[in-house]
């Protein structure tokens, strides 16, 4: 895998991410046409494939991949195309031949998104009420998995202790909001 592309997704380099998005878009839509995917669905699938590949960049998994960025992206896309075909099959007669028109890209299986629990919905509601800096701090710590020291260095905080104390304040505020919620 081209590390510069994984880095672009990880650090949200808007310009390079946009170039990658535009670069493979038309070819992906032609690719999904072989499976008789409707054009608007193709665009949605392409975007979902981008979301997944970004998730793999953030988790570090993308750096261990041996194939090229394009092969991996299309492999995820193929998995999503097959999911869409299953969806189509529930609405009209299914043509099993559609599962085999192209062996060019190996399927990359991804975890399908699960519906959030009531607890997660409530948490999301109050998370959105936090200030932007708290949202960023908690995202960096718990989703991106950065240590306090890494956050301090990369985001210009005075010290690890400042990050620790702000994070603790943000968590306290979030917990209080939930505690006071009229459930």
């Amino acid at each position: 895998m081209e590390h510069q592309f994984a880095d672009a997704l990880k650090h949200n380099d808007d310009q390079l991410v946009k170039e990658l998005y535009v670069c493979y878009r038309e070819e992906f839509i032609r690719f999904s046409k072989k499976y008789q995917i409707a054009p608007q669905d193709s665009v949605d699938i392409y975007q979902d494939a981008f979301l997944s590949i970004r998730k793999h960049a953030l988790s570090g998994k993308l750096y261990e991949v041996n194939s090229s960025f394009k092969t991996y992206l299309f492999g995820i896309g193929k998995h999503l195309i097959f999911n869409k075909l299953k969806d189509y099959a529930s609405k009209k007669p299914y043509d099993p031949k559609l599962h085999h028109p192209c062996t060019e890209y190996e399927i990359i299986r991804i975890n399908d998104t699960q519906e959030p629990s009531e607890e997660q919905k409530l948490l999301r509601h109050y998370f959105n009420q936090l200030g932007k800096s708290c949202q960023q701090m908690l995202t960096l710590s718990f989703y991106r998995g950065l240590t306090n020291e890494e956050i301090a260095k990369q985001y210009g905080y005075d010290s690890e202790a400042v990050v620790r104390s702000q994070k603790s304040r943000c968590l306290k505020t979030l917990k209080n909001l939930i505690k006071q919620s009229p459930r």
Partner: protein
Amino acid sequence: MINETLLEKFFSKHLSEAELLEFKKRYDTEADFKQEVDFLNNLQLVSETEEETKFKTQLATYESELSKKKKCAIL
């Protein structure tokens, strides 16, 4: 008392083998610790969803820019 360093190391995937054992033991035996970890795991999912929503908006912007370009070409 919740061990914040242990939690930080867990979420940044920096736990050593010994710390991982301690983490698992605490999770299984200390109600407060389990509650905190479950809360933070949910927070992880929530912040992931929020990040994805932002990224989806970014991708939608690329799409709208592409369709504008197509329209310009026709005119």
